[in-house]
Every structure is written in structure tokens, then in C-alpha cells.
């Protein structure tokens, strides 16, 4: 089971920017309803893409520096990182089929 790992302002560089494989970052906060709907889907994706993409979560309440650096203005936002750069953004709740399609497109 590849459960998404929590990252924070301090660990973001190591876990995401310096990661050897692409990373999908789930920007969320506890009070955000749609985030709670996206999270289980992200967990399913983490299993399906195990070995190819790693998945992490960042609580925007606790980590404003990272959230602000990447211009997060609405959550849920999923950012796909490749070699330290954001290559795709999905803002707002989307169903699983959409997320997969967008993720696959960002990985190309």
C-alpha cells in the first residue's frame, strides 16, 4: 500500500524537488470539504502508480511558505512535479478518470 506521505515546508525540497521520480502533491486543509473527497482518490492513484509516481500531501494551513511559493489560491490543488519543476496543475475537485488523464498528460 503506497499511502501518500505528509510533507511540510522543511521537507518539501528533499521529498519533492529532489525526488528521482515524478511527484504529485495534494495541497489540502482540514476544513476543505472537496479536499476530503479528493484524498481517497489520490490514495487509489498512489497504489496504481506505485513505482512510477510518488504522492505526497501538504497541509496549506501549516505550511504557508510552500503554498504561497507555488501560488496556491484555491484548494484542492494537485501539482505534478518533474525534476523539481511543476509540470501540471489540477485545481478543484475532479473525478478519478479526469485526474488520471491529467496526470498521464503531465508525465509525458
Amino acid at each position: 500500500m503506497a499511502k501518500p506521505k505528509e510533507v511540510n515546508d522543511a521537507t518539501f525540497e528533499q521529498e519533492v524537488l529532489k525526488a528521482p521520480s515524478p511527484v504529485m502533491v495534494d495541497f489540502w486543509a482540514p476544513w476543505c470539504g472537496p479536499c476530503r473527497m479528493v484524498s481517497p482518490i489520490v490514495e487509489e492513484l498512489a497504489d496504481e502508480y506505485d513505482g512510477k509516481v510518488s504522492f505526497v500531501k501538504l497541509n496549506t494551513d501549516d505550511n504557508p511558505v510552500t503554498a504561497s511559493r507555488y501560488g496556491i489560491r484555491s484548494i484542492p490543488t494537485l501539482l505534478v512535479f518533474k525534476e523539481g519543476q511543476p509540470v501540471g496543475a489540477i485545481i478543484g475537485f475532479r473525478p478519478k478518470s479526469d485526474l488520471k488523464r491529467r496526470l498521464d498528460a503531465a508525465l509525458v
Partner: protein
Amino acid sequence: MAQEYDIVIIGAGPAGLAAGLYAARARRKTIVLERNVTGGQIALTSVVENYPGFPEGVNGFDLAQAMQQQAEKYGMEMGYGDVTAIEPKDGRHLVSTSDGEYLAKAVIITGGADYNRLNVPGEERLTGRGVSYCATCDAAFFKDQEVAVVGGGDAAIDEGLFVTRYASKAYVIHRRDQLRAGKILQERAFANPKMEFVWNAVVTEVLGEEAVTGVRLRNLVTGDESTLPVGAIFIFIGLHPNSDYLKGLLRMDEGGHIYVTDWMETDVPGILAAGDIRVNSSRQVVSAAGDGATAAIKADHYITDHFKE
């Protein structure tokens, strides 16, 4: 291959979930189809203070989840899909969605309503990047910034007050010179030092490249144009029913609300409508839930009368 159900419910807001609960308890094979987030409008509401039974209020998403779990306990199913059409087929109703087809003995339409847009330049481009229709969702990202709130009704003031928890200032831009919001909300708004009111004004453009930097305003009385620098614009100018795909099938008013009887029946036998999507809805969570239950009871009777086992 269309999946067969006794009752297909379109939309998993309070109306749909209450209908689902009653339908499932009537032992009807029931599915609720949702294209976005369970709870509909209340999924984004931080506290629902006026749903009876919760003296401390209840988080909208939590309430929706509880409604869903309660109905699922009795066998209601949830499905994903955006409904594109309903057609008659073999004495039943074929519901077509983005993700498959469903053949139902009865259909309950509880699709609710969606936010109205300003339809000005920059609005769509900057949605999610400073343009928002949900304060509880996005206000936290504009801490200590000045923001604009457009509208004069309950939503604009309620959500505008929420925004002031984070923003340094909230400019409430309203096209009239008085608010339509309820008295309690107006009192709170006028007493809030962070709220400033811009009367008789409309937004003509949302400015910014990567994110919102300001809005262009026009005063409706003087014709004067101005620019207001803000980091975000929260838009609360009403809702429209999600009934476009039903035009031609069901009788509706000019605004797209569906005409129903006291028992939520539409003109088409076997199709019912409940909640914000129907005419004369009071647009409250408790009313939507009441409508949903009524519709499900009627749908259950309809199936008994029309489909001899």
C-alpha cells in the same frame, strides 16, 4: 448496457440524499448520481446554522457525509456521472450520463443550482487564481490582503463575513444602494470594521496576468469607471438551476426551475423534481431534504401503481 434501477436520483445534495434514504428504506433499488462533490452547495459551507437539530451548527460537508452514510446503510448506491439526457424507453426512463446509462422506473431530479457568473473578461481565466465563488474554500489564501466581494444577498454577506477572518479588508460591491441580505447578516456586516461597501457599482473586468491584481468598476449612477486593486474577487450573485438538459422535456419557468405538484411530480409520469431545482423552492437545506423525502414517497407509490410485480 444500461444498468437497471427502481429509482435513479440525479444530484447528491440534501434533496437527493434525503430522497435516497427514503427510497432505500422503501426497499427500492436506488442509485444517486453525482458529477462533483457529495452535498452539492453545502459541501462548501463551513457551518450550517439553520438545519434543525444542531444547536452548535454543523459543518456542511460533515452533514452531507452523514446523510449519505445514513442512506447507504439502507442500501442506497452512489454513482458518478454528469447526466446529459432523460428519454422514455419501454415505459421507463433512460438516463444518459458521461459515465454510462441507467434505466429507471422512476427518476427524481435533485440537481440543485450552480453559481451565476459575472461573465466579464478575466473571470474565467483567473478562476482558481483569485476569482472564487466560495469563500469557505479559498479565503484562507488571501490572509492580510484586500479583496472584493460581489453581491448583496445572504450568500454575499455571509461568505463576505467569513472572508474578513483572513482578509485585511473586504470591499462589498453591490449594484444597488441597499443589501438584500437578512437582517441579522446586515447587522453583522455593518458592524464589521473590515467591510467597506461600494454601492451602485458593477465589476466590468477582472485584472491580472497569472493571478488577480484588481477589478474594474463602473458606478451605475454616475457612469464613472475606476480600478480597485484587490488580491481576490469572491462572486456571490445568485444561482441558476442545473436544468439545461431538461429543456423541452419538462415544463419550467423562465429561470429554468421545474414545475411540480405538491408531491414533487413533474408533467411526465415517473419523473419528479425536488429541492432548489424546482419552482418556489425556499432554497434551504431543510426544505430540500423535505422535498426529497416527499418525492421518494411519491416515487415509491408510482412504482407500486405502474409496475405490477
